[in-house]
Each structure stands twice: as C-alpha cells, then as structure tokens.
C-alpha cells in the first residue's frame, strides 16, 4: 500500500504539472504575468552568472533579456531560475520556465524525444580538456588511464566516452552535479583532467586559485556543441518569437545597428532592411503577435549580438574575431534569416 501510494503520488504530481502546461499559449501567459521566467545555469561566467549587484549576466542571460524586451518592452522583467543539467528539461516541460537558455547542446535525441524545440544558436562551442600546467600534458591522446571530472548527465559525458573508446584509451569518470563542483574536484585533485565545453573551461579557469595561467586547455576539440535557447514543443508562436528575437540581434550586428545608434537610425533609417528591423517600416512585430517596436526594444536595451559577446564572453578570454561565432560575412558561421 505504501509503495503504490508513493507511486500514485508522484504520478499525480506529474499529471498535475503536465495538465498545467497544456493550457494557454506561452505568450499570453508571459504577458499576463508581466515577467519572463528564464532557466539558466547561474554559475558559468560569460554565459550566466550573477554580477556584484545580483543581476544575472552573460550571453545566455542576454537572450532572455532580449526576449523580455521584445515581448514586455522591458529587459529587466526576467526572473532567472538557476537549473542543474539534470533539472533543465523537466523544468521546461513542466512550465517552470518559459525559455531554457542554459548552454544546452542541440541533439537529435533531445529534439525528438523530450517534447521540446531548439530555436537557434547563441554560441557555438566544442568540447575540450583542461589539465594543470605542471602535468606537462600536451595532447588528449596522452590521457590514457586518467581520472576525468565531468558534469554528470551532459552530452559532455557521452562525447568523452565515445572519444576514449574510439582511441582505445581507458578513463575513470568522476561525475559531479554542477560545473562548480567539477572545478572544486579538479582543484582538489579528485581528477587529473576537467572536461567541458571549451568556453566553460575558460570560464572555470578564471575562478581557480591558480588562474588561467596555471592550467592548459588541450588543443583538441572533440565535439560539436551548438548551444542555444530551447522552448516547449507545441507552441509555434512562442518558438518563433524566441528564434526571431535572436535573429534580430544577429541581423542588427550585420546591419550595423547598435544600442547606441538605434535611435538616430530609427529617425532616419535610409536602408529599408534597417527600417524594418528598427520598427520604422513594415509590420514585423504584428506578425509575431508583438508590438511594432519589439526588435527596437531588444536591440536598444540589450545590444546587438556583437555588443553582447564583447560584454559577456570576451572578458573570460575567448576572442571572437574569425572564430565560428563571428558573422558569416567575417568568416564565422552566424547567419540569420532576413527580417522581412
């Protein structure tokens, strides 16, 4: 009886959660609430970490700021909910967050079986390995037999397993729940190597006692990690809004619109593409179910993609020029469909 009662309770709890989700459109919910609930990691500098004032900063947090600006007209109307890798998908599926912007890799399994949709990428990453500089290790192929700290339940864990199996090497995983714990374990000597997406390795090394100078990020990149905001499946309008907001930020950079010059451009656009993006022409916002100044608000309050990158990711030591995260016009692969 006890057993069946417990199962029934958990079943009941999930039933209630799912029933809630199935109700109204996310856009209406967000507007009615006056706030956007955004799931972030909350502990990765450059992506989402609180600043001195307690405000969440980073490229993942900026996406939510931009969506809030586009939908509600105010980038500060975001409630950030820190989630572990384990909690994130359930939190999104159960309606605990409206957008999941938590350095989440786009994969087939996630797209097809978890009831969620990936929109576009706000950062394109790849997995790497970090060792202490005094270990003298220069390549991942020297890691046979090593203990490796990893965040449990991530694609990182799977890539690592594949990579070592491919190269006929053995390893011992040391799985922690949060990336902060993986860093603590690595610093304390629970493992020889720390693996994660390279951007995270750079970010974590800034928090270490020895600092970025005391560690080596090995040159090999063993995976593709396209990271981007995720929404629930079955709400196409909301998915469009999140994707288009991200596209707007990228297009703004391409067209040279910044938070600084947008007001003057709005008054005198010149280029019709610019005019559409700043809301001086056309009815782009209306098509999405938003106000005419949706993209204006997002760019004005949060900045274009380049401004966001320079403010968030560049300071942790990952230069952008010529990398995959640069615009397609400058040798990168960031390419957004036209706003028209």
């Amino acid at each position, binding site marked *: 009886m006890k057993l069946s009662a417990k199962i029934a309770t958990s079943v009941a709890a999930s039933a209630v959660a799912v029933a809630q989700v199935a109700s109204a459109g996310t856009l209406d919910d967000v507007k009615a609430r006056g706030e956007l609930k955004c799931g972030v990691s909350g502990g990765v500098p450059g992506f989402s970490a609180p600043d001195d004032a307690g405000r969440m900063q980073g490229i993942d947090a900026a996406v939510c700021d931009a969506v809030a600006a586009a939908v509600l007209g105010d980038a500060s109307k975001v409630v950030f909910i820190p989630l572990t890798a384990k909690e994130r998908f359930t939190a999104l599926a159960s309606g605990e967050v409206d957008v999941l912007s938590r350095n989440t890799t786009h994969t087939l399994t996630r797209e097809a079986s978890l009831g969620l949709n990936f929109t576009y990428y706000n950062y394109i990453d790849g997995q790497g390995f970090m060792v202490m500089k005094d270990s003298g290790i220069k390549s991942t192929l020297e890691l046979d037999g090593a203990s490796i700290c990893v965040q449990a339940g991530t694609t990182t864990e799977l890539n690592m397993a594949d990579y070592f199996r491919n190269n006929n090497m053995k390893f011992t995983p040391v799985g922690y729940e949060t990336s902060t714990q993986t860093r*603590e374990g690595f610093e304390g000597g629970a493992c020889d190597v720390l693996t994660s997406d390279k951007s995270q390795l750079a970010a974590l090394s800034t928090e270490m006692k020895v600092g970025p100078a005391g560690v080596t990020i090995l040159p090999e990149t063993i995976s593709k990690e396209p990271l981007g905001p995720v929404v629930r499946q079955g709400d196409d309008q909301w998915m469009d809004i999140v994707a288009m907001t991200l596209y707007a930020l990228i297009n703004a950079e391409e067209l040279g619109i910044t938070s600084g010059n947008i007001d003057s451009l709005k008054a005198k656009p010149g280029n019709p593409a610019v005019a559409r993006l700043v809301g001086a022409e056309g009815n782009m916002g209306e098509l999405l179910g938003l106000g005419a100044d949706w993209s204006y608000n997002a760019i004005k309050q949060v900045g274009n993609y380049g401004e966001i990158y320079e403010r968030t990711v560049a300071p942790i030591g990952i230069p952008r020029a010529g990398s995959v995260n640069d615009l397609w016009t400058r040798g990168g692969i960031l390419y957004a469909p036209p706003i028209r």
Partner: protein
Amino acid sequence: MTERTRIPLHRDPRVRAILVQVLAAVVVGYGFYSLFQTTVDNLVARGIQTGTNFFDEVAPFQIGFTPFFDYKLGESKYIDVFFVGIQNTILVAVLGIIAATLLGFFIGVIRLSPNWLVSRGALVYIEIFRNVPLLLQIMFWNFAIFLPTLPAPKNSIAMGAFYLNARGFHTPLPVIENTTDFAIWIALLTFLVIGLVMFARRAKALFEETGRRLPVPWISAAALIIGGYIFYLVSGSPLSFDEPVLGRFNFKGGGQLPLPLFSLWFALTLYTSAFIAENVRAGIQSVSHGQTEAALALGLSRKDTVNLVTIPQALRVIIPPTISQYLNLTKNSSLAVAVGYEELVAVWAGITLNQTGQALVIIGMTVAVYECLSLLTSFVLNWYNKRIQLTER
C-alpha cells in the same frame, strides 16, 4: 429470534461497513487510474516518449566504480547501470550501518560515563553531528577536508603496500594462485570452525554444570588466526597479492576505496551514529537501577551486570528506533550525488534519466528500489527484535 427481527440488508451494520469500504476502494482506485491515464495522454500529446525500450540500449557513458559488476563501456546496457547503482547503494548502506552501529553504541555508552569530561565530550559530539544538515557534512568532509589535505597520487601516503591519496585508499587484493591448494585451505578452515563450535558448546555445558567459565572468544580468535596461518602454509600458500602500482595518473591494480565513497561513508557514519548514540542512552536509562543493584547483590561482576542484565533489557528499547536510523541512512546515501559517488540516484535517476529523458519509468523504479530496501531492512530487524523481546511468563 424470529424472522420478524431480521434486519434488512441495507441497514445491517456489517454489510454496510463492507459496502462503504468497497466503494471507497473503487473511488480511490479510479482516482489513481485517471491520474495515470491523464499523465500518459499528456505525455503522448506533448510528444514525450515513455516506456522501457531503452533498457536494452547500450549505455553511452562510463561508470568509474563498479566493484561487483563487469561494466564495459560500449557493451553494457542501460539496465546494467540500474544494477550497478543498486549495488553501490547497498554497499555504502551496509558499510554505513555497520560503522554507525559500532560508533553509536560506543558514544551512547560513554555518554553515561561517570567521568564528566568523557560524558560531556560525547554530548558535544552528538549535538554537533545531529544538528548540522547531512548534505553540508558530506560536502564539508569531501571538499573542505579530504580533498585539500590528501596528496596527489605521486605523493601518496604509503603504509606498506597500502596507499592513501586524493583519489582514495588503495589496497593489495588477494588473488587465488592455485585452486586445488585454495580448496584444501578452505576445507581445513572449515574443520577448524566446526571444532571451535563444538568447543564452545562444551564450554557452555561446563559453565552450566560447574560455573567455571572459559575465555571462549579469546581462544577462538587465537585458534582462528594461528591455525588459519599454519593451514595456509601447510596447504602451500594458495594466495598471492595483487599490489597497487603507481601508473602515469594513479595506482593501477589492487583494490580501491574511492574517495567519494569514503567521504560519504564517513559523513553518514558520523551523522547516524549521533542518533544511534541517543537511542542507546535512552535504552540503557530505561532499565531500572534496581536491576543493576539486584544483579550486584547476587554477586555478578560489573561486566556481567552490564552484559547479562542491562544490555539485553536495553536492547528492547534501542532496536525499534534504531531500525528507523538504518532506513534513514540507506535513504540518505542518495546525497552521494554531491560528491560524485555512483549510487542509484546518481547513475540511474541522474545520468540515465538525463540521457534518456524517461523520468516516469526511472523515478518509479528508483522509488521501488528504496521501498524494497527499506522493507527488507525492517523485516530483518523486526524479526531480530521479536527474538530478543522479553519472554514474559
């Protein structure tokens, strides 16, 4: 009584009681059924796949600590991960229960010591470990004490063939060299044990007849150690030892008690022992002082008074609440996820759930495992409790 006094069915209290119960069962059952159905419908509607098909898929990740299971990356399946998780949970629970019982008993007894310093010391111990959240204690020992103080593998603390470092404790492991010789040794040992059992019976008979007592435990222990070693040599030393050897990164070979397991075990033991100590104190204090006085008046020694009069009666009070502590310890082992020990919640309800997204099935199975472990523990201890209850005549 005649037919006129027969009560109509709908007013018969017995029939009505049964009817109401059946009705209640049906309503509750339907409630559960409809909740379940709603969940399934909603999962389907949201495109979330659920089911047990993933059990037979190859698990795409590695598990570090699988002492009783040959886990092979690229061959083992998801369902193997489930079994590895159960084994690791049981391992830490059993280790923790044994250690917490011994330590708790010791602390509980010295808590009642007439020595002020000793009894206050025990009190401080209990109040500290009982009142600090367990998760905090686990993380404290692992991240604040063991990891920073223990050396890297290259500078391991060596104790003969035993090594201690930040990865854990490495021991030599016995390996059977020659199976025939080993069988001979085991056979000789069996004879020795049978002999000792017979000796113990004789000693008991002698005690009941004459009151003379032989030091049976000491003799048995000495016979086992000395006899065991002589037989080992006689049978041709059938074991060899696989010693840990320092490799490029860590020790290879031998046995290993990984640091996460050690931290978790350590914290669970300290925490639970504080509660058990209080149970022990309560149990001992529940035995009326008159019992001790009576035993002393009968001429029993202090030691016999405690062992034969106080403890057996105290156990009746100690055991029931201690069962709960054992269950708590087993369930608390799920906090292992904080230090990276690979028990059920970490590898099954954590990694596997996240890689497959099968929350409903996985959480259901995890709940069932804990439920079974708890019921099993209760069952065994309740049986023991019944055996030691005072037989009243």
